[in-house]
């Protein structure tokens, strides 16, 4: 007995939409990062579900690389955040408009 592929796809879409809502509404960059992690996880879930459906290991391979890229992205992104905080003492993304024309 097994369950339809669609359930995993719809769940993945729900998690991805939550990530979109988080990225667009939050002002704190750490919370924006966490919403991006939510979106990456949603995509990973659909990759694995499709890979399982097709009997192809490619979905799981891509997921491993997405995790490696996410780890690199988080460590550099949070490093940038710390560097910003050292110079500006504020990390609200609406205040960081020094490059605005």
């Amino acid at each position, binding site marked *: *007995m*097994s*369950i*339809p*592929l*669609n*359930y995993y*796809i*719809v*769940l993945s*879409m*729900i*998690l*991805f*939409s*939550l*990530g*979109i*809502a*988080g990225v*667009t*509404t939050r002002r*704190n960059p*750490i*919370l924006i*990062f*966490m919403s991006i*992690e*939510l979106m990456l*996880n949603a995509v990973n*879930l659909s990759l*694995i*579900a499709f*890979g*399982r*459906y097709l*009997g*192809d*290991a490619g979905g*799981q*391979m891509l*997921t491993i*690389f997405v*995790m*490696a890229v*996410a*780890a*690199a992205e*988080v*460590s*550099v992104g*949070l*490093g*940038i*955040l*710390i*560097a910003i*905080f050292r110079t500006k003492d504020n990390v*609200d993304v*609406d205040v960081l408009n020094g490059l605005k024309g």
Partner: protein
Amino acid sequence: MTLQALLSGQGLMFLFFAVAAIASGILVVILQNPLRAALSLVINLFSVAGLYLSLNAYFLATVQVIVYAGAIMVLFLFVIMLLNMGQANLNTSYRGVRTIIAFSSAIGFGGLMSAVALKGQPNVMLPADAMVTGSSAGSVEGIGKVLYNPNLPWLFAFEWTSFLLLVAVIGAVVLAGKRQQPSEDKA
């Protein structure tokens, strides 16, 4: 109809972790305190690991717990405490009217994509557990056989991953490490 599929073993597992993932995902988006949002994200990552298990991706479920819920979330919590945002920034987390637009567009996107998925091929079932054998089963051995196979493209990506991690190490140390010469970096 297909809702009966949720009463099987895999269906119950899916239901449990899906509800946990959605509930904790909502908490990540709406909670004001960054620490609480981070801990909700840990629950979300654990639930997604459970969903990986229900899809026979055993090794990836382990990696999800070790790398995401273990290492990445620890880094998030350290930075939250480093910037001391437990108390500050509490009442500035939302952007007023734009919040409504953002939430409705997110709901619209999710609804549209879900409708496409459900309308397209409503009754495509995942293969049963007994059908999943060999490398697609996602055991440590199966993953290794595909990942390090010189006839498949993943080996190339694996070697370049090391360059990515090297760049991440150097970038993070340069950005956040202590200044070597404090007088030089006054720019």
